[in-house]
């Protein structure tokens, strides 16, 4: 289409229109002149010229009319076509733009809907997270790089008696004092690990938390120090109210103590009178009856030992394991022990051998307790070996440690049982297991570790086992100065202790 402006377009039309109208008029005028002129004798050549001119003029006029009408016709046609196109939705250049605008509008609407959906999801996620945080029973709070509280869940508020608004942005140290044995645990730990590149995790149990109203809670605390401080966080701390648990543990501990005492009372009478019968009745009782008495006595003795073990376990769990440390001549100690064991194991029909390294240094140990450890290991060996089985004891130094090993050539311990060996209720499944509370190894481990030592086992099914423990020897010098006993010589055993006044 001619894109010249509509002004010139219309000018053209006007000129053409005028010409189209004037020329026919002129021709008609010429023709009238001719018809009137023939009668007045004008030259016939002039007539022919005038006729030709008039004819040409008429043809031109016709052509002009055609041109004019075509000029008019084209835009009219387009308008008509556009109208039709609009009516039937066929793409048309003018409407292409509109439909593109329409599509663009659709896309904007879609994007807006998506953004809204994302925003809703974020809101739901955040809401979910908040719900989770607020329904946890553990108190959780987070600190930023300046040790200010930036997160404080509902449980934390309930447990401490502080409101989230009161603590927001506050420095945690004095607002939330967490103490273990009177020492503040948190700021020191954070400073200690502040430069660490790894995520640090700290656990504390038996922590005292003073609530806003002044009363105290007993809690377990776990803290995580984040090395790269994402989202401005430095540390996450969670704490759990263990007050009821601790009370329950106390009740349990007290119960065991009372139960032990109650059990021991009739046991005293049983053991005591059996003993009297055995001593005083030798003349009157047949060997068979004496043997019966001995069986009863042994049973009662085992019962007494069991009560003692239960009490020990309870104390170990309550961190009340009482070690009576003293300076011992290791060679004398182990040689005496070996002699006792030789007799016992002969009775139990096991072959026994002992190797004690000569020239051992003095040991700073609880002799009764270490004896109990060795006894427990030997008992364990007896339970895992058949009649005639071999058990051996070896005592030697290895660097700055004393190694005590009990070997047997018995049935060994299956690999899947090894992990549970030193736990509270491990029981030997072997055919030879006669009796035992399953507490012996647990107690042995506690005693060895209380001495700063380490207990282990190596076993192969069908071949035998090797149980051992090591005791550190470094403390000897320091121990020697501690052992100056102002109380006098004290003889200790599983039955208690008694002072020796015969030596001055």
């Amino acid at each position, binding site marked *: 289409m001619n894109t010249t402006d509509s002004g010139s377009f219309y000018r053209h039309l006007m000129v053409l229109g005028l010409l189209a109208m004037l020329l026919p008029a002129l021709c008609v005028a010429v023709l009238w002149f001719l018809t009137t002129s023939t009668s007045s004798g004008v030259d016939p050549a002039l007539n022919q010229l005038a006729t030709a001119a008039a004819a040409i003029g008429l043809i031109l006029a016709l052509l002009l009319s055609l041109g004019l009408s075509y000029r008019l016709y084209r835009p009219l046609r387009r308008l008509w076509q556009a109208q039709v196109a609009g009516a039937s939705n066929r793409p048309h250049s003018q409407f292409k733009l509109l439909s593109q605008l329409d599509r663009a509008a659709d896309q904007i609407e879609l994007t807006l809907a998506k953004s809204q959906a994302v925003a809703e999801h974020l809101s739901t996620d955040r809401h979910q997270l908040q719900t989770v945080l607020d329904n946890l029973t553990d108190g959780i709070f987070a600190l930023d790089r300046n040790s200010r509280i930036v997160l404080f869940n509902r449980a934390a508020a309930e447990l401490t008696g502080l409101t989230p608004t009161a603590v927001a942005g506050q420095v945690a140290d004095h607002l939330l004092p967490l103490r273990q044995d009177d020492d503040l645990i948190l700021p020191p730990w954070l400073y200690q690990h502040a430069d660490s590149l790894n995520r640090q995790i700290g656990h504390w149990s038996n922590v005292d938390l003073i609530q806003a109203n002044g009363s105290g809670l007993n809690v377990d605390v776990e803290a995580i120090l984040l090395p790269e401080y994402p989202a401005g966080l430095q540390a996450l701390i969670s704490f759990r109210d263990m007050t009821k648990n601790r009370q329950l543990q106390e009740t349990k501990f007290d119960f065991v103590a009372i139960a032990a*005492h109650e059990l*021991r009372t009739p046991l*005293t009478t049983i053991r*005591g009178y059996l003993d009297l019968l055995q001593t005083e009745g030798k003349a009157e009782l047949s060997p068979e009856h004496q043997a019966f008495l001995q069986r009863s006595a042994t049973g009662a003795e085992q019962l*007494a030992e069991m009560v003692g073990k239960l009490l020990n376990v309870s104390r170990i769990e309550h961190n009340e394991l*009482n070690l009576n440390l003293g300076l011992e001549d290791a060679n004398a100690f182990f040689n005496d022990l070996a002699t006792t064991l030789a007799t016992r194991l002969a009775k139990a029909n096991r072959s026994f051998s002992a190797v004690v390294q000569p020239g051992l240094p003095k040991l700073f140990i609880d002799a009764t307790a270490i004896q109990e450890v060795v006894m427990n290991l030997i008992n364990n060996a007896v339970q895992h070996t058949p009649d005639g089985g071999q058990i051996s004891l070896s005592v030697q130094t290895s660097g700055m440690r004393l190694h005590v090993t009990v070997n047997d050539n018995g049935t060994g311990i299956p690999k899947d049982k090894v992990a549970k060996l030193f736990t509270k209720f491990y029981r030997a499944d072997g055919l030879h297991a006669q009796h035992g509370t399953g507490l012996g190894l647990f107690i042995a481990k506690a005693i060895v570790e209380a001495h700063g030592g380490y207990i282990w086992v190596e076993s192969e099914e069908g071949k035998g086992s090797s149980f051992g423990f090591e005791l550190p020897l470094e403390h000897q010098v320091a121990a020697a100065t501690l052992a100056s006993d102002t109380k006098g010589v004290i003889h200790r055993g599983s039955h*208690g*202790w*008694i002072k020796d006044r015969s030596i001055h």
Partner: protein
Amino acid sequence: MAGSKTVLFIEDDRIISEMYGRVLGKAGYTVDYAYTGTTGLSQAQSKPYDLILLDIMMPEMTGIEILKRLRADPQFAHTKIVILTNLAQDKSTQEELESQADGYLIKADVVPSQLVGLLQKLL
């Protein structure tokens, strides 16, 4: 027996008193019995004893209480006092007892025939 050692046995369970008292008597000791804390304290004052055996769980007054009172009295500063009980003690009480008493024996772990041997270290 002239010059035999004297023992005061403060224990409320008569069966147990008799049980241990019997072997002590056979070993040559002279044994007096008191079945309450109060009687025990007054008995202790009545004559000098070489050894006082003391139970803890007693009505009216515990053995620990009696021990404290005895040791507070200079008259008994050198009397041998051994606690004979079935009660286990916590660390702190044990340490205190080690300085105040001369022995601490668990009855259920000490049969009569063992008692004399143990006490001989003291007497």
